[in-house]
């Protein structure tokens, strides 16, 4: 399968990427690792007229501490997140989530910004960011705005990112000592989660339980009012709207959400 023709531009800096976006408008797409975009282009679900390659912009990559946050450049690859000692110490649930994405080859190419901008409701990193209560730094023609993970995802494969904007960095709280758990239920190696759960402190996020990654709000409220993990986990599917497919029907997904939430709140990974 071969993508439809497009023009290829290499951005020299974040500013250059923005000016190329301004020049080409909605016909342009940003390319980093290409591991969400290129598969879509190969099956012609996406046919951008211009690709703007931001993978070589050094300022968009890397992991650093800024005050009480860890700041991660948008083009930082999954393998770099998974192998980062800094991230493992400061936000271990995110390093762990990155290690669950796809397979080693995919983790050598795919980027955190690409995964978040793609906004797949069954993906690892959107769910992990939501559990962490992280935020996204979006650079546009009129400057930088910061959007919380709770407000970023608006539908399946849809976010608040505008066509003239660049997701430049991801911010997560420093919290190496905060208890966390992570559960990803799959039937096949390197698949997307049939249901996924990330827990961080009292926050619980779900994957594949609706059109966006979701907070398990009923579970979180119950925990806040002193319920046991077991009692709180029973509420994990409340307010969710999972779909059905050949992997699982709605009842089964709701059941998985409850079981996996309990395990995640117990600090288990798997």
């Amino acid at each position, binding site marked *: 399968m071969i993508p439809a023709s*497009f023009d*290829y531009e290499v951005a020299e800096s974040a500013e250059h990427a923005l000016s190329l976006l301004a020049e080409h408008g909605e016909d342009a797409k940003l390319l980093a690792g290409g*591991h969400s975009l290129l*598969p879509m282009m190969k099956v012609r679900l996406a046919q951008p007229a211009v690709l703007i390659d931001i993978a070589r912009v050094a300022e968009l990559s890397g992991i650093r501490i800024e005050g009480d946050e860890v700041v991660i450049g948008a083009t930082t690859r999954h393998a770099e997140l998974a192998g980062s000692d800094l991230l493992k110490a400061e936000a271990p649930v995110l390093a762990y989530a990155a290690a669950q994405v*796809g397979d*080693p*080859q995919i983790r*050598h190419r795919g980027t955190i910004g690409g995964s978040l901008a793609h906004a797949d409701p069954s993906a690892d990193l959107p769910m992990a960011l939501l559990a962490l209560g992280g935020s996204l730094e979006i650079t546009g023609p009129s400057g930088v705005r910061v959007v919380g993970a709770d407000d970023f995802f608006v539908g399946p494969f849809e976010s608040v990112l505008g066509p003239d904007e660049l997701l430049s960095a991801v911010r997560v709280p420093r919290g190496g000592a905060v208890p966390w758990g992570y559960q990803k239920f799959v039937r096949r190696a390197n698949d997307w989660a049939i249901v996924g759960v990330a827990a961080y402190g009292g926050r619980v996020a779900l994957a594949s339980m609706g059109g966006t990654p979701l907070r398990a709000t009923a579970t979180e409220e119950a925990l806040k009012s002193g319920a046991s993990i077991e009692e709180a986990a029973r509420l994990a599917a409340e307010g969710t709207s999972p779909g059905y497919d050949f992997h699982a029907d709605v009842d089964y997904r709701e059941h998985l959400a409850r079981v996996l939430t309990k395990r995640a709140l117990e600090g288990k990974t798997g």
Partner: protein
Amino acid sequence: MTQIKLTVNGGARSDEVEPRLLLIHYLRETLGLRAANVGCDTTSCGACTVLLDGESVKSCTVLAVQANDRSVTTTEGLVAEDGTMSAVQEAFRENHGLQCGFCTPGMVMAATSLLAENPHPTEQEVREGLEGNFCRCTGYHNIVQSVLGAAEKLSSTGSSATAESSTEVNA
């Protein structure tokens, strides 16, 4: 058309390519390097795995233009000029790590990358490290033994799995 300059199996290349040309097609059709195979064409099976700057990637999901200024190694590039195979290749032969052979170049490249990142993997780590590569003959047992054998060979000789030969591209 876009001009790309890159290193393939140790040799410098410069070519005009269409931006939409996939790396796997550049390697197979432009350069005539046929070790990497097109299997699923959907980033799943790993038959097209090559090394990009020493790291395993699925070349069906990389544009040739993304390899500009970078170094690509295919299975052909693991063989030394005098025909000596790499430790990983040799271990696959010794342990009969292949059946039909279609997945083998991808397995060898994934294993080469894995051993460069983790020179002493456990059996479990080898299995997880190869999760991006399918063997539809299901010959996984001997493949895993081959990678463990290669790790042993490399640690006894103290060499690295990514040692690249200076073989010129035969294209």
